[in-house]
């Protein structure tokens, strides 16, 4: 076991010292390879003009699904539509609209699908209630099992494995074999 740990640590150290070497290589090769594309998202950066507004905008759009690239939020996405919608939210906030009004604006156009936090209604009841129901079932089952086992006499259980150093059991002292 100790051997395994030492080996792992050595590997990590080796990897750690190798990474900066890769990084140092990169600038040297950059001039010869100008085809490297840099992806930048101007709209996703905090604008210096009004960081407070930007933070509020990102808080709202961070809970909205981008419909173009469906597993990203509107705050994260670089899709054209997401850029537009961020601008839309900025303007709505500047006009004093509440986050609730903005979410309403979005669901009016794109439906509940755009919300990463879907509302509780008949069609989403299973989604919201199933985890609690499953937890309740699990707890009841656990209680039943514990009660049943508490009523059993000691000789119904397997004896505990011996943890005595004088008598090393074959199962515990098996050497760790690498490779």
């Amino acid at each position, binding site marked *: 076991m100790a051997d395994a740990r030492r080996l792992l640590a050595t590997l990590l150290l080796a990897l750690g010292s190798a990474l900066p070497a890769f990084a140092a290589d990169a600038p040297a090769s950059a001039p010869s390879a100008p085809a490297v594309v840099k992806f930048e998202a101007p709209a996703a950066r905090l604008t210096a003009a009004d960081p407070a507004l930007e933070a509020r905008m990102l808080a709202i759009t961070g809970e909205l699904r981008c*419909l*173009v690239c*469906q597993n990203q939020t509107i705050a994260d996405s670089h899709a*054209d*539509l997401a850029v*537009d*919608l961020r601008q*839309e939210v900025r303007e709505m906030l500047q006009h004093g609209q509440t986050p609730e009004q903005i979410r309403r604006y979005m*669901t*009016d*156009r*794109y*439906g*509940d*699908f755009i919300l990463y936090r879907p509302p509780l209604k008949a069609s989403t009841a299973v989604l919201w209630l199933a985890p609690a129901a499953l937890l309740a079932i699990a707890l009841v089952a656990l209680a039943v099992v514990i009660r049943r086992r508490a009523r059993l006499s000691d000789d119904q259980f397997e004896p505990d494995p011996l943890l005595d150093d004088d008598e090393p059991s074959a199962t515990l002292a098996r050497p760790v074999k690498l490779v």
Partner: protein
Amino acid sequence: MRFVKFLIPLVLFGVLVGFFWKGLYLDPREVPSPLIDKPAPEFALTRLDQPEQTIRRADMLGKVWMLNVWASWCESCRDEHPYLVEFAKLKALPIYGLDYKDQREPAQAWLAERGNPYDASLFDANGRVGIDFGVYGVPETFVIDKQGVIRFKQIGALTPEVLNAQVLPLLRKLNG
């Protein structure tokens, strides 16, 4: 009793497989639009070919019409366009284009090259009207009834199958 106990996980597994199996055939791109059977949003846009002339939502009331969202930069619009040109020849209903986030010159060149199926194209340079229509994947197509209510929406390119099996029967219903 013991038998039943072993059956429970098997049944649960079966239910899970059922859900996953169904999930395999669901298309997450097909987001049900909340706009179906709702009034079309207000708009006032200039014509692509006549920047001085504005078309509004109110101008379209009283007829069943089609709004087809397109753009000269849109790849799948190229696939859809021939079908739309063919469909326009039927004169089944007025077809209006919504030229989404485009520029006038390339858009007009695009229509000149490929044929113009539209009675007119509305020019939505900044995509605001597109957002109001819930557009997220060009091309999209809407059918709007005489009262200005959206009755049909297609996300992605129209196909002859969709036009024949869905749009034409809907038109018969709306006009009949």
